[in-house]
């Protein structure tokens, strides 16, 4: 993800959660969070439980989100030299001393704690961006949407049929002591049981709305969601069967070697020692075997990122 993509991502998140953008440039946002976004991003569970219980008007936080730190710094430096030092540096000496004291006690204090508008640089891998990613995932798990019909093509008295589809985004991990991942987007027609791939990309070109539009009627589903999930699992398995599993064979080979090495160490030891100690050593042996399986056993794991029901007119 480059700086531009991050900027676009942040902008869409802020809009979707109803935040108030106070100031923006191509490299930063100053934003007053909406209550929903504040709950997700500011890590203030006690404050929010207080608001919920007492019903007071919540005071949300404001953030400075910088999506390209280098350009932002250049921009502000320029503005500052133009304004000839109007407005002092953030935080006085007392505040800095306070921060230093906190950091002595805890080793590390996140930047911006205690300042009025904390600044976050959102590079890929930064904590704030990770948090936005996580917030998007929590806030976008299940949807139910209807395709808007193309208005010009329809006669006002006609009604276009819409077929329900189950769309699922699944992350597949190939894991041993290392890991590789893929994303797949499956769609299943709940009317016919047809399974398609790259479903998410198809959705992106469509106009979708959470409300059933006029001139549209929904056809019934003949497949249960459970059955549709079975179909997706089958399709995924079929796809995965065509892959190369050399990495798994290699991992199994290492696993076998490691277990043999353990046996070579522990089995004579078990024979030598007396009953009292043997139990202890046997337990240790078991623990080491478990650790090695945990570390090396090759497996393919799946994780559903999100899923939804989509009523589409174009697809059957």
């Amino acid at each position: 993800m480059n700086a531009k993509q991050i900027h676009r991502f942040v902008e869409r998140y802020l809009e979707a959660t109803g935040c108030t953008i106070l100031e923006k440039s191509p490299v930063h946002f100053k934003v007053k969070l909406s209550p929903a976004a504040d709950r997700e991003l500011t890590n203030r569970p006690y404050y929010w439980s207080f608001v919920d219980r007492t019903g007071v008007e919540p005071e949300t936080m404001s953030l400075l989100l910088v999506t390209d730190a280098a350009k932002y710094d250049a921009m502000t430096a320029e503005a500052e030299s133009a304004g000839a030092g109007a407005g002092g540096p953030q935080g006085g000496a007392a505040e800095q001393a306070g921060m230093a004291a906190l950091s002595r006690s805890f080793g590390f204090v996140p930047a911006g704690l205690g300042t009025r508008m904390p600044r976050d640089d959102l590079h890929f891998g930064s904590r704030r961006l990770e948090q936005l990613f996580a917030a998007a995932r929590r806030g976008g798990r299940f949807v139910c949407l209807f395709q808007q019909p193309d208005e010009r093509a329809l006669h006002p008295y006609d009604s276009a049929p819409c077929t329900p589809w189950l769309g699922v985004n699944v992350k597949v991990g190939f894991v041993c002591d290392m890991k590789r991942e893929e994303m797949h987007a499956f769609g299943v027609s709940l009317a016919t049981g047809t399974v398609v791939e790259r479903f998410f990309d198809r959705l992106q070109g469509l106009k979708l709305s959470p409300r059933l539009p006029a001139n549209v009627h929904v056809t019934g589903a003949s497949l249960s969601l459970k059955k549709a999930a079975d179909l997706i699992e089958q399709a995924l398995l079929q796809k995965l069967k065509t892959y190369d599993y050399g990495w798994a064979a290699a991992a199994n080979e290492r696993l076998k070697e490691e277990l043999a090495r353990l046996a070579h160490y522990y089995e004579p030891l078990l024979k030598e020692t007396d009953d009292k100690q043997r139990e202890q050593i046997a337990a240790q042996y078991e623990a080491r075997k478990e650790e090695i399986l945990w570390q090396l056993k090759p497996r393919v794991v799946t994780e559903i990122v999100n899923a939804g029901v989509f009523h589409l007119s174009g697809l059957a």
Partner: protein
Amino acid sequence: MHPIQRPDRRASGTGKTPHPDVEFEFDRTWVDELAERTARNGPWDDWTLFALAVEAERAKLVTSFDELQALRCLPAFEPMPHQIATARKVLHEMGGRAILADEVGLGKTIEAGLILKEYIVRGLVRRALILVPASLVLQWVRELNQKFGIPATAQKKAHSWHSDFVVASLDTAKREPHRELLLSNDYDMLIVDEAHKLKNKKTSNYQFIQQLRKKYCLLLTATPVQNDMDELFNLITLLKPGQLGGQSDFAANFVADKRLPKNEDRLQEALSAVMIRNRRSDGGISFTKRIVRNIEVKLSPEEKALYDAVTGFVRQRYDESGRDLASMLSLITLQREVCSSRDAVFLTLVNLFKKTAEDSPMRAKIWELVEFIRRIQANSKAEKALEIIRTTNDKTIIFTEYRATQEYLLQFLKQHGIHAVPYRGGMNRGKKDWMMDLFRGRAQVLVATEAGGEGINLQFCHHMINFDLPWNPMRVEQRIGRVHRLGQTNDVKIYNLYTTGTIEEHIVRLLHEKINLFEMVVGELDDILERLEREEQPLEQRLARLVLESDGDADIRRGIDALGRSINRLRADAKRSPKSSLDSVLPVLSVVPDGADAAAEARP
């Protein structure tokens, strides 16, 4: 957020799999919830967030088994080539279980952080436990947070054990009630710093680490072998039992003598599967230069008088004691202190006075010396140090051996309008950290009596004044190592202050000209001193004897020359027979240039 796939360590139940070599599991946790929301017609989430979630997951996708993902998440951080090479080797060839045994100052912490970060980014580590000496806890927390963006916390209260990334002291962790709690957990990764504390398998440290359940494990130590071969065996057994065979195999195959390995090549091969050791001398690791300047200080007539009086006093006592070196310790200290400050001498004299019997003739003599002290008005060395500090006009660290000198210097600098802070071994951790903060911030000068303590990193400072020189060269090296380490971007300027016509002049000559200490690498010095000790007495004692027994300046000079020669001979020996050193079997990682190891990826 990124749920780690806890492997089912028993056989999986479904039986469905795309290939007999792998287990397969299909996530169905979502079906019921989606069905319920459909039945109740809501609540539904936002379409934009749904799309953003997919976008975020796509961006985070780990598309390759091999490529280091951590680096693209750390734009502001540039590890050195040997650190990256080490991380790669641990990840790809060692399966995440390794002993990181780099020499001091090459960045073992960085390597461990890099490996941990990579596993976190790949979703293979969600919980990690980091056990370090108490004095290093906060430093680890700081490094992991600042350099690696890993939200590590220092263990303070019982509940902090529940954080995903906890840094704690090994001594705390192994005690109840913590021990039981930790043993009941599974840790995706365990890191132990200063792991040479785990060399004895009978200790509670060792048994505790052995019982902890962990997937990946890193043991960090600069000295994997300190005394004998068994230590090496124990350390490796902790990580990978059987790697060197059973205890009896090991003894038969690899041990010639307690301290001497045999079948070195095979041993090295076996070790290289679990251990990485980078050395300063291996090249590929560049340090800034050390610029050493010996600064001559002329004693004032009053100071010189005190020096001569103390020297006479000490030698007289020595002769009276029948030349017994062991009983002379405090007097030798006196001899060294007189080169540092009158305050240090005074304090030792007062203590000596208290210890001598009331009717002893010694008391009068001590009183005489105190009279000499009274006459001294200024400290010539301190004036010189002030001059240096004023000309560099930069952060400077002053090392002295003596508390009294430290106090004096702090006061002296304060009088001259220079902000200086103290640092000494006796301070508690919080105070040490506080002093470091002050030095990093407002203070220009740090006056330190201790250099050996773990965890003082002063890369931001590159001027160092040795106000007095310790007679033990290792202590000098430790001092320099605080400043001259990885991350130091400037050449380091070292000023050795020595007073003419005193023993100091000889010490400087020995350390600088004769053994060229200031340009030596750490491991080398260690080795030579150990050899010296095995052959004769430790260097400090030989120096003491020289001072006490020599007959005038020329005699000392001859003695120092002889000492220098024998050290250089030992050094030549050490170079000629590298195989005899136990250290030589430790596997060394040769740094591969970037890209050379971009092996073909096994694509599923």
